[in-house]
């Protein structure tokens, strides 16, 4: 695949690994958080941790929209899907996310709820056109990457004057979550951030400036290929060594300083900030999520179906909250690989392939096993 395979070259990766070893000062520790689940997935898939010296540690952050969606929002969606008139459209990852007491949209579907998996927001519009007698609701989730496609869908619904279409909006924002992590007393020390790739194609590099300027944390925006990650880690090590804290852009082939202005404009015209939003593992964060503006209230499922906010407690044995804040690793959870696997997820980190637990289950546990055999 062009613009992917070139950034997976093994020889170049070996060279970069050598450069990282040469640059990393053995007298100090480097702890970098990759905010984004896509990076967590790449690190696990390509075994990047094995290429790093022991004093360079990657901390998996909360940047997976499925992992941070609280059980209460899943319960709200399930209740909606169980209404006879409703067709609920969801991205595939959402089907198995656990709500309260082990419920999920998949189980609701098995009981007869009309839940449809869609690949694109445009599929949801097509469903609404094909089913004029039903209420089609799109379960919108995701960070700044996924919000512009929802905006395009809302425009299309307006243009087609669809009266049977609404959106259950759960879009969340990256910078407030990074802020919550930095401001929490209950977080690991972080020496720098690997900034999100595709979120940044939309918002650009500017929104990360406060973390570099005010918090003294270097930020390097990185692509999702293994060489992108390795280069970003090297750039972070260099910043730490030089005592610099700047926003640097490794992913220049797709990210600019100001981002995708058209997408930003569309999102700003359609959405506004919520005062508060509950995140799984991070609690309630002010101004961290979006809802539809009053001009689009007729498309808001929460209003049309008078949905009330549900807050439910997570399974107390699940360590997702500590994992999302970098305090623990998947293997520190006693449910990991026993009660909780990708087939039977208990916490949300096991559901999406970008979740820390699922990534470790799929790729990391074999390495753990080999390491055990070797010792």
């Amino acid at each position, binding site marked *: *695949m*062009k*613009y*992917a395979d*070139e*950034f997976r070259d093994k*020889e*170049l990766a*070996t*060279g*970069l690994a*050598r*450069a990282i070893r*040469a640059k990393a000062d053995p007298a100090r520790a480097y702890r970098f958080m990759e905010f*984004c*689940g*896509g990076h967590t*997935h790449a690190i696990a898939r390509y075994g990047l941790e094995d290429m790093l010296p022991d004093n360079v540690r990657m901390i998996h952050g909360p*940047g*997976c*929209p*499925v992992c941070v969606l609280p059980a209460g929002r899943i319960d709200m969606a399930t209740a909606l899907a169980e209404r006879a008139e409703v067709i609920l459209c969801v*991205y595939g*990852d959402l089907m198995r996310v656990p709500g309260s007491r082990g419920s999920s949209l998949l189980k609701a579907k098995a009981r007869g709820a009309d839940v449809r998996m869609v*690949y*694109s*927001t*445009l*599929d949801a519009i097509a469903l609404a056109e094909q089913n004029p007698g039903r209420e089609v609701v799109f379960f919108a*989730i*995701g*960070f700044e*990457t*996924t919000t*512009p*496609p929802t905006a*395009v869908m809302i*425009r299309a619904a307006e243009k087609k004057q669809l009266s049977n279409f609404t959106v259950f909006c759960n879009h969340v924002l990256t910078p407030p979550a990074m802020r919550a992590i930095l401001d929490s007393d209950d977080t690991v020390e972080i020496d720098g951030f690997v900034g*999100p790739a*595709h*979120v940044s*194609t*939309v918002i650009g590099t500017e929104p990360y400036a406060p973390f570099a300027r005010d918090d003294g944390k270097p930020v390097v925006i990185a692509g*999702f290929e293994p*060489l*992108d990650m390795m*280069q970003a880690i*090297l750039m972070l090590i260099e910043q730490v060594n030089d005592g610099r804290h700047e926003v640097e852009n*490794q992913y*220049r*082939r*797709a*990210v600019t300083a100001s981002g*995708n*202005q*058209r*997408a930003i404009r*569309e999102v700003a015209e359609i959405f506004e900030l919520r005062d508060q939003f509950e995140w799984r593992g991070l609690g309630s964060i002010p101004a961290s999520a979006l809802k539809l503006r009053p001009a689009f209230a007729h498309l808001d499922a929460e209003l049309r179906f008078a949905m009330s906010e549900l807050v439910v407690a997570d399974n107390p044995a699940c360590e997702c909250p500590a994992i999302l804040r970098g305090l623990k690793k998947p293997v520190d959870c006693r449910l990991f690989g026993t009660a909780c696997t990708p087939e039977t997820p208990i916490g949300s980190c096991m559901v*999406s392939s*970008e979740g820390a637990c699922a990534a470790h289950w799929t790729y990391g546990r074999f390495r753990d096993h080999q390491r055990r055999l070797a010792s």
Partner: protein
Amino acid sequence: MCLAIPAEVIKLLADDMAIVSIDGVSKEVSVALIEEIAVGDYVILHVGHALAKIDPEEARETLDLLRQMGEAVAEVRP
């Protein structure tokens, strides 16, 4: 969920839609979020929408830099 992949635009369609090719597999996607788009451009594709264009010049420079970074160490520490 947030994973997105590079795809080549092979045909522009009406209503801000386009046909893209992902390693030879073609798909109809929305290009409504892209300012100016032409056949032959590479885009980052996410949930059926092109999110950004890939700049071939920047991609080449990044690869050159990656090469230099590895080689610089090879020279210092053979």
